[in-house]
């Protein structure tokens, strides 16, 4: 599958709230088709950085280009329709069926033809049974709801996916499942994906590039392999230390028995 996702370029991007520099002059190039994880502790600025890309948060200064085009060259709602957005609280519309939730982007775009077929296709894509289409969101489990959230974001065939702790509220098994399946989808559809997570293990598994944020700046920029091998700075090391220690503990346990 050829790469269809765009490249992204951030230049001296900042967002200040009063005296707090949530994002502090970040410059970054993200290649088309990459799956980038933004990792950091709460308040490190990773969500703010992500939301500036689809202008849910307006930058204080700096520029963002998607596929070479400045984001402010179109109206925010036009920009957002080209970008898939998935977040922790899912936000399915409780008064709409699953089918209508998934197809809402098509409805907004005024596309009337082939909505049902596209919904069926998307349900398959996120591995939900077809009879879910007529249900209401509150009849679904959390994991099922977030699958619908992913399907809704993909409905208009965006090249870029922004994901803000998408699986953070799910139980570990469901979470692992979804993470794995999303990785496959990303590759199959040739997307560019930026995913915010505070879970280094998830980032190490999922991403082909990991950015570690702290205090509004990027403190480390490395592949998973580089991170695990060390020598990428103290902040990154502190985060990597946790899954490493857990893994070591599990291995030790396994040897005992």
């Amino acid at each position: 599958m050829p790469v269809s996702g765009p490249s992204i370029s951030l230049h001296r991007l900042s967002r200040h709230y009063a005296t707090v520099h949530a994002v502090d002059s970040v410059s970054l190039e993200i290649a088309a088709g990459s799956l980038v994880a933004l990792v950091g502790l709460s308040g490190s600025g990773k969500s703010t950085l992500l939301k500036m890309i689809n202008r849910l948060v307006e930058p204080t200064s700096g520029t963002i280009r998607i596929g070479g085009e400045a984001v402010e060259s179109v109206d925010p709602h036009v920009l957002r329709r080209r970008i898939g957005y998935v977040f922790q609280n899912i936000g399915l519309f409780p008064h709409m069926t699953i089918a209508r939730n998934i197809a809402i982007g098509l409805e907004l775009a005024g596309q009337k033809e082939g909505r049902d077929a596209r919904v069926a296709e998307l349900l398959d894509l996120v591995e939900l049974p077809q009879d879910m289409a007529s249900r209401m969101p509150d009849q679904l489990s959390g994991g099922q709801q977030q699958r619908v959230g992913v399907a809704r974001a993909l409905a208009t065939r965006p090249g870029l996916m922004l994901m803000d702790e998408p699986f953070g509220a799910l139980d570990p098994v469901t979470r692992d499942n979804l993470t794995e399946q999303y990785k496959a989808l990303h590759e199959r559809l040739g997307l560019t994906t930026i995913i915010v997570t505070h879970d280094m293990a998830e980032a190490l598994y999922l991403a082909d590039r990991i950015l570690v944020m702290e205090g509004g700046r990027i403190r480390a920029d490395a592949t998973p392999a580089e991170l695990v091998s060390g020598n990428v700075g103290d902040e990154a090391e502190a985060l990597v230390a946790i899954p490493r220690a857990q893994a070591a503990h599990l291995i030790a346990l396994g040897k005992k028995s």
Partner: protein
Amino acid sequence: MNAAWQQALARVPELLAAHIQLSFSALLLAMVICLPLAIWAVRSPRIAAVSLAIASLIQTIPGLALLALFYPLLLGLSALIGGGISAFGFLPALLALTLYALLPILRNAVTGLTGVDPAASEAADGLGMTAWQKLQYVEAPLAAPTIMAGIRTAAVWTIGAATLSTTVGQPSLGDLIFAGLQTQNWTLVLAGCLFSAALAIAVDLLLGLIERGIRERKRIMAFAGAALIAAGLLIATLPLMIARDNVVVIGAKSFSEQYILARLIGSRLEDAGYGVRYRDGLGSAVVYQALTAGDIDVYVDYSGTLWTNQMQRTDSQPKAVMLDRIAQWTKASHGVTMLGALGFENTYAFAVRPEDARDKSLRTLDDLARVSSDFNFGTDVEFLERPEWQMVQAAYPIRFKNARSFSPTFMYPALASGEVDVISAFSSDGRIAANNFVVLEDRKGAVPSYEAIVLLAPDRASDDRFVAALNPLIGAITVELMREANYMVDRRDDKKTPRQAARWLNEKLRE
């Protein structure tokens, strides 16, 4: 009892129709104002704070006062733009009720819209909805049940408060309640209450059905509720759509004598071939303005009332001079014709119990002044604020122990039972003679004369048939006749309706 119910029920369809038309219009107008305001308020906390504060403030004004306030407000506005705005009837009632309905609708709409799940709101933004699409697809549907609950509350309040619109000359089910209260016709009061309560309950149930339909996402339920309301509205307002030509509107203030005289005038006009409608229970201040504006065609007022209220005079003049001056003044300043005096007076008369009059040898207001510090004073609701009271106080050193206001209905029993010791009675009231109350003489002539006079709206003066039909009444009604007719309506047993009393009076006049 059966006849009384029949009589009450006969008036219900038209009053119910007017009631529904008024409450529905007020509710609709309140929704038109509140829903955009709520949308704005949700996007601007300052607008929310200010608009909710104003709506709450309005809510603290009693409904009756709110209605009363709109009357002078509209008069002033009308004067400012050179006329054309009617301060009488539908418009002031509509505006007051609309203001009254604002708070529940606005508060619930703001609560509903701000209460939308932040996740749904973030998803709407993330999907690229415009502000309008977000409102249409997400905020409005999610807030709808809450908004609907506010509309329900407003509807019930509005239907209840609409009964008060009678006082500004807008027909409503309140007409039955006010007329019934004044003439102690409890059947009328009960009929008015029952129908307005039933209307409120029915509307509440139907709006509740719509609310449930929206909440549970059952469209059929919501549509059924809406269809039933629409059908009810249509059927209820049918009586109003029947056109009426050449209809005379007769005004009456809110006491028995006025109801009776209005019916007497009405029967004479009906005999002359006019269609007749009545606007009962109008306030003293409202009724004259309504006549000058042509909202009513004819009513009976009292010379002293015009003298002190409209003409702002504080001097006392002989009867004949007074009538002359009034006729000149009404003609010159409003084009209103004074057809003439009916022949009796209804002045403020201080009345005491016969035993007090005997034991304390009370004959005049001077005698009353002597004992006033031991006396409790009972009056109607307006007397203490009226210039006549100041005139009396200026002429006699009267200082009562305390003063209480009653509706006329309850003032006479209060004197009879000893709750008060002296009342500001009306000299044509049949209950003075019936209770053997003693009227104290006003030897200094402090209270101006209150001749009952017939006033015609500007464009009725040249209507010869109209004038000819009413001319025989001039100078024909003695105070004895009027007292007897009043007593028929006011007494507790064997009560007559104002119409029956008017018929009796009419027969007496033809004898």
